[in-house]
């Protein structure tokens, strides 16, 4: 297990380096720093203003090789955008936003709290509700309940997330006035009201796909031989579901959670933006609308980092949950 872990983390680190290279190509090689400067400063400034802006934001160095230095001088390679990019990203030195010059790190710190307060409940409720519903449906498989729920899942899956948000805001926020349409409060006891609707919308929009997937897993497990053995021992259907099927189904479910982790970031993007929650998602949307490439770069990097970390964690928990992997 230990060797597996080390290999896994090692590969994750290499992947991070790969992602950073991809970001470099996208944000420095493909994008023209002059364009970024122009968007930030305005179209009609003098060339010196552009040059100064680029210098201040670190865009004024050559991409890969700095020929200003002699061969043999290490600064030939280190005083480049590539090296700088790697150094800063790996040391989490994110610099300033291209749009408003604020310190990105500070904005990150401010945004983390609200984001987590949205995504953690979203994830937890979504998972628990999905598993419970799927268990219920799997118990009643091939009956009318099962078919009805499956049809419902198909319908709910086919509705765009955007529409859930819009109709949620309209129906519950405007018509029924149960929760505020948007906004946020930092005090925990006030934040609940503002988070209720986005969490509700987020859970409902994803539940269809989840229940279908988990149901398939549960039903597949129910058809296995060891379940037949359990029944032959005298286990009732309920016990079969909870003590045997669920325990085994957790393994494939865990691996599917990896796939849902990125949706925590991107789903939060929409939710935060629509519901006015000042988290990292809102920050990203602002960066898009403001052509703020440095912030966008940072957000993509962090997204990838968290995703890779999430994958490693999931792999580890998978290995812990399955004794066949753990004990070899």
């Amino acid at each position, binding site marked *: 297990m230990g060797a597996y872990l080390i290999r896994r983390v090692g590969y994750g680190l290499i992947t991070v380096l790969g992602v950073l290279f991809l970001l470099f190509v996208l944000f420095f090689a493909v994008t023209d720093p002059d364009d970024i400067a122009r968007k930030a400063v305005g179209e009609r400034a003098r060339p010196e203003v552009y040059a100064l802006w680029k210098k201040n934001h670190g865009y004024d160095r050559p991409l890969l090789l700095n020929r200003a230095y002699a061969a043999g001088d290490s600064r030939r390679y280190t005083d480049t955008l590539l090296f700088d990019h790697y150094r800063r990203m790996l040391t989490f030195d994110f610099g300033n936003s291209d749009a408003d010059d604020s310190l990105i790190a500070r904005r990150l710190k401010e945004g983390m709290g609200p984001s987590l307060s949205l995504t953690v409940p979203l994830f937890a409720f979504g998972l628990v509700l999905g598993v419970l519903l799927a268990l219920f449906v799997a118990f009643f498989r*091939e009956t009318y309940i099962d078919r009805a729920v499956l049809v419902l899942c198909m319908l709910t899956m086919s509705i765009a997330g955007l529409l859930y948000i819009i109709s949620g805001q309209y129906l519950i926020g405007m018509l029924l006035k149960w929760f505020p349409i948007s906004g946020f409060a930092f005090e925990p006891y006030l934040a609940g009201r503002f988070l209720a609707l986005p969490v509700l919308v987020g859970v409902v929009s994803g539940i269809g796909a989840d229940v279908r997937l988990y149901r398939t897993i549960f039903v597949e497990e129910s058809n*296995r*031989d*060891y379940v*037949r*053995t*359990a*029944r*032959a*021992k*005298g*286990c*009732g259907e309920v016990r079969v579901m909870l*003590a*045997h099927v669920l*325990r*085994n189904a957790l*393994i494939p479910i865990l691996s599917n959670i990896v796939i849902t982790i990125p949706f925590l970031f991107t789903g939060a993007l929409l939710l935060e933006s629509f519901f006015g929650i000042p988290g990292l998602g809102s920050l990203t949307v602002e960066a898009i609308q403001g052509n703020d490439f440095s912030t966008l770069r940072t957000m993509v990097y962090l997204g990838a980092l968290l995703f890779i970390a999430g994958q490693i964690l999931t792999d580890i928990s998978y290995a812990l*949950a*399955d*004794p*066949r992997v753990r*004990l070899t």
Partner: protein
Amino acid sequence: MSAPLLSVENLVLTFPAETGRIAVVDKLNLTIARGETLALVGESGCGKSLTALAIMRLLPKPGRVEASSRIEFDGRNLLELSVPEMRAVRGGAIGMIFQEPMTSLNPVTTVGDQVLEAVWLHEKMSRSAARERVVELLHMVGIPDPRARFSAYPHQLSGGLKQRVMIAMAMAMRPRLLIADEPTTALDATIRAQILALLRQLSFDTGTAVLLITHDFGVVNEIADRVAVMYAGMIVEEGTRRELLSHPRHPYAQGLLKSIPRPEARGNKLLEIKGVVPRPGRWPPGCRFAPRCPSAFDRCQAELPHRTTLSSSQGAWCHLVEYEVHT
């Protein structure tokens, strides 16, 4: 003779097909006496496993036991029991082991916990007492170092050991009947002999009757007291082991035994039964073996044979045999 432990009468099992429900097992009759080992022999696809599952009321969903059937066990018709009552029977009065030990054990629970469940479902006791019982059971089925093996996971055990664990689970509550569905088919030849010997020993020690399902006459020879031969959803001949192996009367049983390769017969042509087993839904009217039977005559095509008693223990479902007996 005392009443049989298990008496299956007129068992009919149906499954849905494109043309409606078809019978996979039809008018099957079977009895097992207390403490005896009955081998149910037949080719793959004749319905033996389904019969076993039906006795346990574990027939997979689309299948159905038709109302005309009757399964009497220890004086009660199992088909009429309520669900909780049947659950008490399963694992309590009747135990069952399956063919594939690899997949028949829960991979994420320890072996000991699984046997524990078999006990705990039927008799509530303290955890330590239950643990002791499990260790005893593991020892009884011949697992070396049972206390240590308690916390082993199935994937850490060999096929033979896994099957022993299955037997321990099935025998946990000293059932009166053990149903073994091809328990040794997936095991090596040497292990096979050990498992069969274990089953024989347990049956002898605990007085448990055994319904052994197999397609292998070698297995029959080793542990069966009585044999029932099954073809196309019904029993065609039954009798003691000696009777069936030395003088079978039904043409199908005769054909089966003749086709077993013998070293003495080397150089001669290998005997076979011509034709193939008809699929459920395509059974001919009348005797189902008639199309392949070398001795078939008119009545065989028209009428399904009844049981002809040949001795106190042997019986055959065959018109020819009936004719021979009555002349």
